[in-house]
Structures are given as C-alpha cells and as structure tokens.
C-alpha cells in the first residue's frame, strides 16, 4: 500500500483538482474591462476553494480583433499592467487565460498563459490559425511553432486553443509529452443550425473533446465563451471529460456562468490499469511512418 501511495504522490502531488471554467462574454478590444471581469471571477472562484480557473480563447481581448490586434497585445511579464494583477491573483489559485502575445520582434500570437504561484509556468501559441470560411486568423496573427506539455502542482498538463484541437496531432503530441490534463480553450462561433438539438459546431467540438479524453485516457476540459460579436454568436457549453471519456460536467449553452468540476486524479490510474493505451502506444512506429511520408519530398 505504501508503494502505491508513494507512486501516486510522486506523479500527482494533489489527487483532486477543484476546477472552474469561466464561460464568459468579453468586450471586444477593451482589455481593462475584460481584466476586471477576470479578477472578479477569480475572486469568486477563490471563495469556492477553486484550485484552477480556466478562461476561454482570447478571454482578455475578445475574438474578432482584426486591426485591433496590435493595440490589445500584452506580454506575460511581471511588470505588464495586465499580467501583474493576474500573477498576484495566481498566488491563491492557478489561472489559465487567453490573450494576444507580442514577442520581442513584434509578432502577434493567439496565446494561452498558465499562471501559478505568481509565476508564468507556460505560454502556448496557437499553432493552427483557421483562415477559411468565416475565419481570418492567419491574416492577423503569427503561427505558433511548438506544442509542449508542462508541469504543474497537479501533474503534467497541456494547453491548446480551438483550431489546434480540430487537428488530431497537437493533442497527440501533448499526450506523448506527458500531459494527463488537457486544457482546451475556444471562442467558437456557433454555426450549422439544422433540425438537431445542438448546433453543428457544438456537436463537433463535444464529439472530439470526448474522443480525446477516451483515446488518451486523460482529463479534457474545454472552456468556451458566450456572447456576440456583430452577427457571430458564441455558444458556451463548457465541458470536462474524465479518462474514461465520461462527462464530469457540461455547462449551459449561451449563458455567462462559472462552472465547477472536481477532477479525481486517481481516475487516471484506474482507467490506465484497465485500458493501457498509453503503455501500448507505438511512438517508434509513428516516427518511422512519418519519416517515410516526409522523406517522399
């Protein structure tokens, strides 16, 4: 018994996460107003003993930024006026926020930052920028060029932003890099109204996030925003799935709300004892086949 306990402590210092998903509406281009909302919700979450609060894609800026991009960009540094109060708040609970990151050479990225204990633990730059249909991200943003998991006080996590997880490879890479908890964030415009119960866009996202939890035997949390920007409607419906692919929580559609979920991290061990997909994953085979495909020139 002691051995088992020791192992679990080693891999997951805390066995439960009280997670909050902030299903919010943002003001387009008004970073200060959005920051105030973040701080207020972080305070609410703190009162409810939350360990980690996750905000949606571009939660500090709004989504269809177009020519506003440069004017809403910030750097996740201690002396940045937006990140300073967020970093301070992260001494009480961990925070994942969405923002526009400007690098030292003035490239602008759609980004998520994970803040904990007053420090920035990780920044992810969106690696897939949809530039088709109603989307025009590639016109305004630089493409991120890495997908990395990172260690937190709850274990190893990975963050992806919207279109990143419409592609199968980024979640797969995070899984191989050790992520057991996937924090996915979106500003997903609702589309595809037909006679079904849900919008096509909502059904699609729920299907794939559930599939990732099942295939990677991991926790998958999805934070999505609500509200409108011109005619675009963001549908909300945040979700958390456990390593069995079972739904832990499902937020309402179209309402601004803070949704709470308890993640029992021991479920990772129980599921993977039953279903050793991670153990059996043949990364060497993947590599060989990728090498073959890429060497075709």
């Amino acid at each position, binding site marked *: 018994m002691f051995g088992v306990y020791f192992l679990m402590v080693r891999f997951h210092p805390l066995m439960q996460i009280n997670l909050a998903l902030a299903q919010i509406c943002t003001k387009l281009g008004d970073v200060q107003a959005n920051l105030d909302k973040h701080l207020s919700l972080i305070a609410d979450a703190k009162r409810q003993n939350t360990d980690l609060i996750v905000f949606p894609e571009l939660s500090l800026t709004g989504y269809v930024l*177009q020519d506003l991009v440069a004017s809403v960009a910030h750097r996740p540094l201690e002396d940045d006026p937006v990140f300073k109060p967020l970093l301070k708040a992260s001494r009480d609970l961990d925070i994942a926020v969405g923002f526009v990151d400007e690098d030292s050479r003035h490239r602008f990225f759609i980004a998520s930052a994970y803040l904990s204990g007053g420090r920035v633990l990780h920044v992810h730059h969106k690696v897939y920028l949809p530039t088709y249909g109603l989307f025009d991200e590639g016109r305004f943003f630089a493409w991120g060029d890495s997908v990395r998991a990172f260690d937190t006080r709850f274990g190893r996590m990975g963050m992806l932003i919207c279109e990143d997880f419409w592609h199968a490879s980024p979640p797969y890479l995070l899984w191989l890099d050790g992520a057991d908890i996937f924090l996915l964030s979106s500003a997903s415009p609702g589309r595809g109204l037909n006679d079904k119960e849900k919008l096509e866009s909502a059904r699609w996202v729920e299907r794939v996030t559930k599939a990732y939890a099942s295939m990677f035997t991991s926790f998958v949390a999805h934070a999505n925003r609500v*509200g409108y*920007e011109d005619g675009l409607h963001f549908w909300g419906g945040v979700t958390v799935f456990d390593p069995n692919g079972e739904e832990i929580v499902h937020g309402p559609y179209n309402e601004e709300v803070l949704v709470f979920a308890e993640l029992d991290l021991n479920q990772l061990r129980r599921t993977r004892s039953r279903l050793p997909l991670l153990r059996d994953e043949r990364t060497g085979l993947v590599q060989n086949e990728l090498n073959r495909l890429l060497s075709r020139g």
Partner: protein
Amino acid sequence: MVNVNLMINTELARTILTGFIRSEVTRVGYSHAIVGLSGGIDSALACALAAEALGPQNVLAIRMPYKTSSPDSLEHAELLAKQLGVQCETIEITDVVEPFIRRDPEISKQRKGNLMARARMIVLYDRSEVFKGLVIGTSNKTEILLGYSTLFGDSASAINPLGDLYKTQLRQLSRDIGIPSVIVDKAPSADLWAGQTDENELGFTYEEVDKLLYLLVDQRYSPQECIEAGFDDKFVGAVVSRIRRFQFKRMMPPIAKLSNRTIGYDFLYLRDWGT
C-alpha cells in the same frame, strides 16, 4: 429529386436570435427597437423576436400604409402588435410619396415601389431618433440572395436577425413562435401595388427556390450538380444569375483605393469594436 431538409430547431434559433437582438441593441447604449410592421410574416417575426428580447414596451411597431396598401395588411399588423403588446404607430406615406409620383406621369410600378420602400426607411430612421431605438431589419436570406429588395429601402436597418433564415425556415419559426396563422399562411407580398405577390413576380415559389439556394449556397453545389440533383436547368440558370447580378445590394459601395489604408480593404474593425 434530391431530398433537401430545411427544417431547423426553432427553439435554438429563437434563443440565438433574441440574444443577438438584446446584445446588439444594448451594447451600443440603447434599450429600444423599431420595426416597420407591414402585416407580412417577415416583419411580424422580427417584431416578435424584438419584443421577446427587449420587452414589448421597448419595441415600437410602425405601420406605414400607402393609399393602395391592402386593408388586410393594416389589420394584420394591428392584430400582431396587439398580440405582442408592443407600442404601435401608424404613419401614412402617401403624402411623402405622391409629390414624386406627380412629377413624372411615366413613372413605372417598379419606381413607385422603390419610392414607397425608401419613404418607409425615412420614417423608420426618423422615428428611431425620437424613440431612441435601433431599426430592426426584416430581410430574409432568400430575398437577400435573390436581390428582391429596394436598396436603401427595406434593406436598410441597424441589425438584421432574419438574414440567415430562408423564407421556408422563417415560416417554420414564425409558426412555432406563435405568429397568427392568418399572417403565416397568406401569400407573401411586398404590397407595393394591388394584387402583387412575391412568387408571381419572381416566377417561382419560395419552397422551390429555397431548396435550390440551400444546395447552391449552404451546401456549395455547383449549378451543374443542382441540375443533376433534379432542378430544371433554366430555373438554376435564372437563380444563379440573380445571385450574381444583385451582389451589389449585399455590399457597402466600394471605395476607390488611393492610400495605404482604405476603409473596407485594410481598415478592418467589427461594428462591435470596444463594446
């Protein structure tokens, strides 16, 4: 003929559209809306959605008859306004339009119709200033795609909740939302002259054209694929041509580019900028 299902989840449409009206009206500091109520289905639905979104007391419905307008139209508009509990005004446009018509004995039906539609736009925007309400658009996806509207007339509005619904979908939503059947079931008409109906003027029914538009626009079928799916080739040709010909009605006037940064090309902000 390929099976085209245009049915929608009307409860979901209702939630999204009332949320849209509430959001887009209130975020610019308004709380009121104005709808020109013709007695037809489109404006009835727009009015009902606005009343649900903002509260009926915050919606002003305006009836704007011309001397040849059908008495049914006035009656149906009144019926709806009463049912919804919205405020209602009647402002005749005959006196506004007549002087133009008298100036030119040769004036066509088409031009008269355009004058009426634009006179109504003037009334709506003027009352909008007094009532402090945004003008809610009533154009649907079918007529926008077919260009079946008067530019700067009935196509003018502050926001349009109906522009992504085909006419047949709009009928389904109207029924489910409780628009009186006398309005939902009557033949659609711009009522610009006696006996005018949309379907006579267009030369096809909404039910037929909506299926074709759905394949062409939503499902990205080529015209040839639509013909192979069972549509008459002349019908397909006429509709495709209308869509292309009336693109100008769906756009702001293009600005001739001279500088490095030109409105419409590389000065890009949503209307909801800062809100």
